[in-house]
């Protein structure tokens, strides 16, 4: 069994505390109701947070160009038009999101989902695919399930209201009425895997001071994003081209893209050392042996998991093995976006380890607990970090802060 060195105890405890502060509310989060969150904001001055379809349409146009200019897979969205498609609602029946079709040369190229309320991030999703409600098979199957449910209760189903309760959570809410047409109940169907869902399970557990504090922090971030967008929308031509909205970016070329082997932390670390191998430190071995050596040095488990405080030790050990004892790597569980920018500007890629990492921009799979190699940033209305994620050879972007916790492992010669 590996014994933790004394110098590692403090960082480990700090990380434990960090994890406790973010994870405990979730672990103990019994299902409290949304009313609690409303109570906390009762004293706030009333403000209409609704976003009109017109405003959302302008935002969608703006973002489509921004996306086309920055994500290679979406380059064909350049000069695309947006056409309003659907309004989605929340559980209380208030508009939650608007979807717009992205159309280029009269051809459907995907969709972008814009929040219908300023209490959520402006752009919620975008994809080259279709929203589940556009799939007739899924909709038919959902109607059948709702119909069967209603029939067993001697009721009839009415027209469904489409719900959007967060990334990939698309539902249809069918009203259930008696033979006189009087509404008696409703049933919610999950559109992605048509099945009946329990309404209480669709509500977020909101409890605990830390969680509420996190929500408040998130709300500040969301407000800042909307304010940034307001400034952009005041431009005489809101359909700003990609070139004029690029903000500041930083990037590092020459970081290899390695696919997952033995674990994400050794693979991500190998990409960082692979960069240094071609930038003045040529003694490192090739991809496979380097990942193997790092996995051993970090004590990565056979399943591929690594203790976070062993990542920097493993990198240091491998550097020393190849004659680079001066190379120093260190963990930083309190990194800031400014630090990310300065590290990228200094052309030093680093390992970014995420706890409950979110979904990359344009992706459909959240990262969860995952290490990636950070190779760039975009300082726009939204802050993004650019990464090599070990799942393919593309450069992906993830919104800065779209995780429960994160730790940087700086690698500095």
């Amino acid at each position, binding site marked *: 069994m590996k014994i933790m060195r004394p110098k590692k105890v403090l960082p480990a405890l700090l990380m*434990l505390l960090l994890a406790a502060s973010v*994870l405990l509310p979730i672990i103990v989060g019994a299902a409290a109701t949304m009313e609690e969150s409303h109570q906390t904001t009762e004293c706030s001055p009333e403000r209409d947070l609704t976003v009109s379809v017109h405003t959302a349409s302008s935002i969608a146009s703006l973002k489509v160009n921004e996306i086309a200019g920055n994500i290679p897979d979406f380059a064909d969205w350049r000069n695309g038009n947006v056409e309003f498609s659907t309004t989605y609602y929340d559980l209380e029946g208030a508009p939650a999101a608007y979807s717009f079709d992205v159309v280029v040369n009269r051809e459907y190229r995907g969709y972008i989902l814009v929040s219908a309320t300023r209490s959520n991030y402006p752009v919620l999703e975008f994809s080259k695919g279709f929203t589940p409600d556009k799939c007739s098979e899924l909709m038919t199957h959902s109607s059948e399930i709702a119909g069967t449910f209603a029939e067993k209760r001697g009721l009839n189903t009415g027209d469904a209201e489409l719900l959007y309760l967060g990334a990939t959570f698309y539902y249809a809410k069918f009203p259930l009425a008696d033979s006189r047409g009087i509404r008696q109940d409703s049933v919610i169907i999950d559109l992605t895997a048509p099945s009946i869902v329990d309404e209480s399970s669709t509500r977020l557990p909101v409890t605990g001071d830390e969680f509420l504090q996190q929500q408040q922090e998130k709300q500040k971030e969301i407000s800042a994003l909307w304010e940034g967008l307001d400034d952009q929308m005041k431009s005489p031509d809101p359909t700003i081209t990609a070139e004029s909205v690029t903000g500041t*970016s930083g990037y590092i070329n020459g970081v290899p893209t390695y696919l997952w082997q033995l674990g994400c932390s050794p693979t991500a670390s190998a990409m960082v050392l692979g960069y240094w191998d071609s930038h003045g430190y040529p003694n490192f071995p090739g991809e496979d*042996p380097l990942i193997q050596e790092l996995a051993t040095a970090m004590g990565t488990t056979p399943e*591929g998991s690594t203790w976070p405080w062993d990542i920097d030790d493993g990198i240091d050990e491998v550097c020393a093995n190849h004659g680079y004892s001066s190379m120093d790597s260190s963990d930083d569980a309190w990194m800031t976006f400014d630090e990310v920018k300065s590290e990228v500007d200094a052309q030093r890629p680093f390992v970014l380890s*995420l706890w409950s990492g979110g979904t990359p921009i344009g992706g459909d799979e959240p990262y969860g607990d995952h290490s990636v190699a950070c190779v760039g940033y975009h300082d726009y209305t939204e802050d993004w970090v650019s990464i090599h994620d*070990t799942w393919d*050879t593309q450069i992906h972007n993830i919104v800065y802060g779209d995780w429960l916790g994160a730790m940087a492992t700086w690698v500095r010669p």
Partner: protein
Amino acid sequence: MKFLENDRTGRVALVLLLIAVGVFGALLLLDLLMIGPGHPPPKALQKWYIPQPRYEYAENGTFVVNRTIDRDIVLIGDIEEGCPSPFPDLSRYCSHAVYLDTVSGDRYLVVNWYFDDNADLLQAEGDLCSRLRSSGNVASAELILPGEPDRSPDEPIFSPISVTKFESEASSGYFAVVEKPLSPEHDDYFIVYYGVFGPAILPDHTAALEELMLRSYSLRGARPPASCS
């Protein structure tokens, strides 16, 4: 007195219970702190053995896609989901890509089927081999890859891999099965095909196909589809 004694016992029991809860909680938190494994999702694994383009930043911060896989071989279009004709849909996780030799004009095809269950793999191998036999010639073959591009100098030369050779009017190439290549602890299985489009003399294209194999994920430990041998 007896009451106090009971009270003391109760307190001890309470302290012990709190310690147990604390230890359990700490262990749970420590487990949650581990990073990884970050295993790729099936959507990524269905492209795993297909040589992918490289992405770089251009001067203005946008991306440049470098589709050159090796010297004269370039990726045409994108890596597509689904199986191309005449290959069967052995798995719902299937992708393929087409490459062009810019000098000879030959077009190459790489197909990747992914399975997360060994039983599904065995079933697919049987289906594949019966389909191959009905549409072309099937034989065993051995390929000796010249060495992985990034291997260290002291690493042994890549050992030969056994594959199934397939020749037909539509396409000719090599099939291989790779089991658990990412980690012995994780159920990942692949059937991969590296071939040339149209009727062709396969040995003339083996070098190009081997280059494509070298530019994909490691084929170490690959074997021919069971039912084909």
